[in-house]
């Protein structure tokens, strides 16, 4: 069984916040990511980056959390970027046809630079 908490690192770089979850984001963990993102979204940073290099698997509840964050940042006129997607996360985003909806870049450096 998997019952450990999802580790989530949060880093502020100027007007940008980088969120780096570590572990699978499934039904048992997506609420933890949502709880971490909500106060960050309330701060209305210019750019919110979610670095997914350490997320080997994400289910539709994790995707729903990211879609919520995307919609909130768009309402705020801010930028929401996903970077460094693992193969498993790339797979579910593509199968859900969300690869054209999210702003996705290959690396954290690219996300910070754009």
């Amino acid at each position: 069984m998997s019952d450990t908490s999802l580790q989530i690192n949060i880093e502020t770089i100027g007007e940008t916040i980088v969120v780096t979850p570590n572990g699978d984001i499934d039904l048992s963990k997506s609420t933890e990511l949502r709880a971490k993102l909500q106060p960050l979204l309330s701060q209305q940073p210019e750019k919110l980056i979610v670095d997914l290099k350490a997320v080997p698997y994400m289910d539709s509840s994790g995707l729903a959390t990211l879609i919520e964050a995307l919609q909130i940042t768009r309402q705020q006129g801010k930028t929401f970027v996903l970077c460094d997607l693992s193969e498993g996360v790339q797979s579910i985003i593509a199968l859900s046809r969300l690869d054209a909806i999210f702003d996705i870049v290959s690396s954290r450096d690219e996300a910070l630079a754009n």
Partner: protein
Amino acid sequence: MQKDTPNQYTEFTIDFPTSPTWFKSIRMLIVAACTQCGFTDRVAGQVAMAVDEALCNIHRHGYQGEYGRATLTVKTTISPKSSIQIQIEDDAQQMDTELIKSRNLDDVRPGGIGVHLIQTVMDEALWTKREHGGMKLTMHKTITPETNQLHTETSTQ
């Protein structure tokens, strides 16, 4: 896990609580079964995702987040083709099978894509009502020379 010899037929059944804390273990089990019968890691991961989405739906909609149980039966064959057949039975609230369908993905909003993922990944997914209560989902996927490549291409479209 020791790799099976060709032509081997594998079947196992597991009964478990439909608590999300169990789902990662179930995913790992499905990946092992898929790779053993010849699926690539990528396609095996997608089949595991389909099972995961089905279990999430049973937990959230069938048992409405309360304690419940499911029985997972997996059958794999290597010859004449590599294939996996998965059956998930529960004792949860019965659903109108006409209402279990993918939604319009052009409407970008959180939630409601689990059925789409299941139907996209698997060759077939059939929900039926069990005679004495609960639901049964039967899914299968067969490997063809194109199958392993298919979802790789899908991910790059």
